[in-house]
C-alpha cells in the first residue's frame, strides 16, 4: 500500500498529512480520513458524494475538480495538493463562499419569465441545449476562468450558460433583458478570451466556451 502526502492549504497555512492510499480512494475519502484520524479541525464541505450537488468542489493538484469524483490513483502523484477554489472568498480552510458566483448568476435573471402570449409553447427537441442543462452550479468553471481572476464583474461561464438556456427557451419572454446584460462591455460575453479552461474542467462535460460563442452570435443576430 502506497503512502501519500496530502498537502492542504488551510486558513492558517499549508499543512501536510501522510495517508495510506487504498484502492478507489477519492480525494473526499482522504479528507474524511484526515478529519477522523489526524485533524478534526479540518473544514471542508460535501453533501451528495456522487457528483450531483457540486458542494465538494476544490482546487486539487492545481485543477478545480469535485473531490468526490476525483480518484487519487488518477492523479498520478504521491503528493496531492488541495486548496480552496480560486476566484471565491475563503470562509474556512477548503470552504468557500459562493456568494460572488450567485451574484453574477442573479444578474442574468435565471428564473423563467413567461411570454405574454398565453398560448401553450411547443418545445422542439434541441440536442445542443439539452447537453447544457446538466449544470450543478458547483462553481468549478468560475474558479478555472482566467478572465474571472482579473475581472471581478465578469459574469462567468455558468451564468452565461444559464442565460443561453433561457434565451433559447421558446417560452421565455425576457430574452432582450438578458441579452442586454450579456452584451455589457466589461462584464458580458465579450470579455471571454476563449481559453477553454471552463470547458476543460466542467464535471458535467458542458462545453461552456461553445455556449459563450453561441451567445455572442445571438447578440450579433439581435
Amino acid at each position, binding site marked *: 500500500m502506497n503512502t501519500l502526502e496530502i498537502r492542504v492549504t488551510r486558513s492558517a497555512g499549508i499543512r501536510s498529512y501522510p495517508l495510506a492510499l487504498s484502492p478507489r480512494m477519492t480525494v473526499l475519502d482522504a479528507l474524511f480520513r484526515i478529519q477522523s484520524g489526524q485533524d478534526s479541525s479540518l473544514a471542508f464541505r460535501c453533501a451528495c458524494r456522487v457528483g450531483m450537488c457540486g458542494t465538494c468542489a476544490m482546487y486539487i493538484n*492545481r485543477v478545480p475538480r469535485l473531490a468526490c469524483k476525483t480518484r487519487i490513483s488518477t492523479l498520478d502523484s504521491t503528493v496531492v495538493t488541495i486548496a480552496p477554489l480560486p476566484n471565491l472568498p475563503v470562509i474556512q480552510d477548503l470552504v468557500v463562499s459562493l456568494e460572488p458566483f450567485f451574484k453574477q448568476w442573479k444578474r442574468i435573471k435565471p428564473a423563467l419569465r413567461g411570454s405574454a402570449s398565453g398560448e401553450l409553447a411547443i418545445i422542439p427537441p434541441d440536442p445542443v441545449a439539452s447537453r447544457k442543462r446538466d449544470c450543478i452550479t458547483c462553481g468549478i468553471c468560475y474558479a478555472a476562468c482566467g478572465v474571472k481572476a482579473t475581472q471581478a464583474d465578469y459574469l462567468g461561464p455558468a451564468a452565461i450558460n444559464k442565460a443561453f438556456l433561457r434565451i433559447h427557451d421558446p417560452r421565455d419572454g425576457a430574452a432582450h433583458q438578458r441579452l442586454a446584460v450579456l452584451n455589457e462591455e466589461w462584464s458580458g460575453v465579450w470579455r471571454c478570451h*476563449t*481559453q*477553454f*479552461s471552463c*470547458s*476543460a474542467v466542467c464535471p458535467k462535460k458542458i*462545453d461552456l466556451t*461553445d455556449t459563450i460563442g453561441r451567445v455572442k452570435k445571438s447578440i450579433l443576430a439581435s
Partner: protein
Amino acid sequence: MKDLIRKYTGPFSGLLAHRIQRVTGLLLLVYLFLHVRTVYALSEGPEAFDRAVAQFRGPVFKMLEIALLGAVILHALNGVRITLIDVGAGQTRQSRLFWIGTIGLGALIFLTGAIPLFISSVLGR
C-alpha cells in the same frame, strides 16, 4: 499579482495557446518599435541608416531573427485558430487545432525557414 499569475496558470491547451498568443504578441510589438526606429534612420541620411542596420549583423541578432520567425509563425497560426473558433468552425476541435494546426504545422514552417536562415546567416555558408 496573485490573480494575474492565476490568470495564466493551468494545464489546459486553450490556456497555453492564450499564453503563447500574449507573449508572441508582446515580442512582435517590441520588434515593431525596433523596426520603425531603424527605418526612421533613413530620414537622417544613408550613413545613419547603414550604421543602424550594421547593429543587426552580429550572430546574436541573427539568432533573434530566427526567434522572430518562430514568434510570427506561432502568432499567425494561433490567430487563424482563434478566428476559426470565433466563427464557430473549430469550437469542439480547439485542442487538436492547437496541437496540430498551431504547434505541428508551425514547427514544420519554422524549420523550413529557420534551417536555411541559420546556415546562411549564422554559419555563413
